[in-house]
């Protein structure tokens, strides 16, 4: 397999060109947005929760490279039916295994952006644990 086919596997390109669960839910029970400061990729994820905080519906919007958008699309399929806590505790390897592509450290950040965003959304809405590696920085400079 050449490098192109390894990184841009057919399934990745499929998710990129036909993203699943695309579009934000309104209303939603949890919602957050995140950026990759390195390249400006943006992702917003919204979630509707059912009984026992099980994720019933999830929708995302964003712009960025094929890896970030495809990974988030795959993620939305992956988290449906899981509880908020299960997603909060989901290791990044769960998503990376699904992606199944070799990633350099820079591209890794693209791949896990969506996962970080959904963890933040659930943390904000449901107080699920948010280990430091996923946290966003506080005390923004806000101009009024």
């Amino acid at each position: 397999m050449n490098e192109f086919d390894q990184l841009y596997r057919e399934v990745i390109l499929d998710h990129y060109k036909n993203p699943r669960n695309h579009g934000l839910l309104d209303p939603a029970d949890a919602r957050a947005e995140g950026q990759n400061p390195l390249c400006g990729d943006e992702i917003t994820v919204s979630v509707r929760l059912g009984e026992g905080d099980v994720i019933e519906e999830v929708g995302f919007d964003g712009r960025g490279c094929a890896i970030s958008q495809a990974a988030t699309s795959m993620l939305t399929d992956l988290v449906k039916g899981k509880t908020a806590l299960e997603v909060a505790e989901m290791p990044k390897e769960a998503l990376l295994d699904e992606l199944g592509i070799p990633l350099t450290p820079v591209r890794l950040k693209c791949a896990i952006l969506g996962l970080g965003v959904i963890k933040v959304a659930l943390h904000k809405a449901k107080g699920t644990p948010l280990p430091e590696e996923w946290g966003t920085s506080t005390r923004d400079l806000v101009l009024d």
Partner: protein
Amino acid sequence: MAVTTQPKLDAQRIRADFAYLEELVNGKPFAYLDSAVSTQKPRQVLDAMREFYEHSYTNVHRSVYRLAERATEGFEGARQKVAAFVNAPSEREVIFTRSSTEALNLVAYAWGLDNLGKGDLVVVTELEHHSNFVPWQYVAKRTGATFRHIPIDDQGELQLDVLDSLAREGTVKVVANNLVSNSLGTINPVEKLAAWAHEQGAIMVVDAAQAAPHRPIDVQALGCDFLAFSSHKMCGPSGVGALWGRRELLEEMSPFNLGGEMIRSVSIDKTTWNELPYKFEAGTPAIAEAYGFGVAIDYISEIGLEAIERHEQELVTYAMGRLAGLDWVTVYGPPADRRAGIVSFNVDGVHPHDVSQLLDWEGIAVRGGHHCTQPLMTRLGVSATTRASFYVYTIPEEVDRLVDGLHKVKKSLG
């Protein structure tokens, strides 16, 4: 009759000075089209730094033994070269910093905190690098001053017709602008802005990080008050940069970093500051790096800044001509004759990260991202661009390879 010959740069001969060119990427020659992020280093600079470390190195301005004298001479010699390079009236007005970023922070903090307040305006532009944007945004917030920007038009050029209405909003105290935009390559009308700033009683702060490597700079002709640039973008080592500042302003300013070297005397109740430029150089500086910075200035000065400017002008004209032939590529910024050797573009339907990934496999290094200019990206309505940037060692064949590579990108992902 006088005959004028335009100096021409021999890129092929220059290429022999750069070891990276001997390397293959994926079995292909390496086309480094990312010099705006940082340039490659010629052997002359690396050899001189090694020689300096081996035979002239210790801390500066401290000891009396011979080696210390040589180290200090090397370091101060570099300061003289930096001063001459930008035509500074005195080398005492040249402060070594870590980088352009630190130089700009120095001005924002050391001048801004003491001189800004409510009713004052800090004016930046929509195409500033974050390093000449965020420090001003922050210091404006801290001091209660108003933070404003000069917008750009669709060609990426500053809309100076807003100046009058800006002046009516308050007392303009700072105008901050880059001489060359790192994202679009726009050459900005800094002289005009400096004249306007001075009419308002404001200071003019120029970020020359992308200008100093590529065109002759004369701080007196620009009429600015501060000018910042980085060694690593002009064939020198990273870790060192320079701030030139107008003497009267530097004299009045409070220090930025405090500690050793920047003091005249210290007691329990009182500390007095050292003279310029040491007042702003606390602690052990990047000694060999400053020395290497000076050697890099010699290196590019020998090639000739006019010749470099012309070489890049030829490359950018050629590149924009070739890209104009691709109707699935959008190029941002002004026409070739009003820009430096930087071309930012997007391939329809393909994110710059993916573009640069695919080009890497072809042995071509370009940058995909927001280039530390998010407000500009917002203005352009994109989250990122792909940027190709050129320097003394770039040849037209590398532009051809870029275009061939883009055809492959289009075929695979477009």
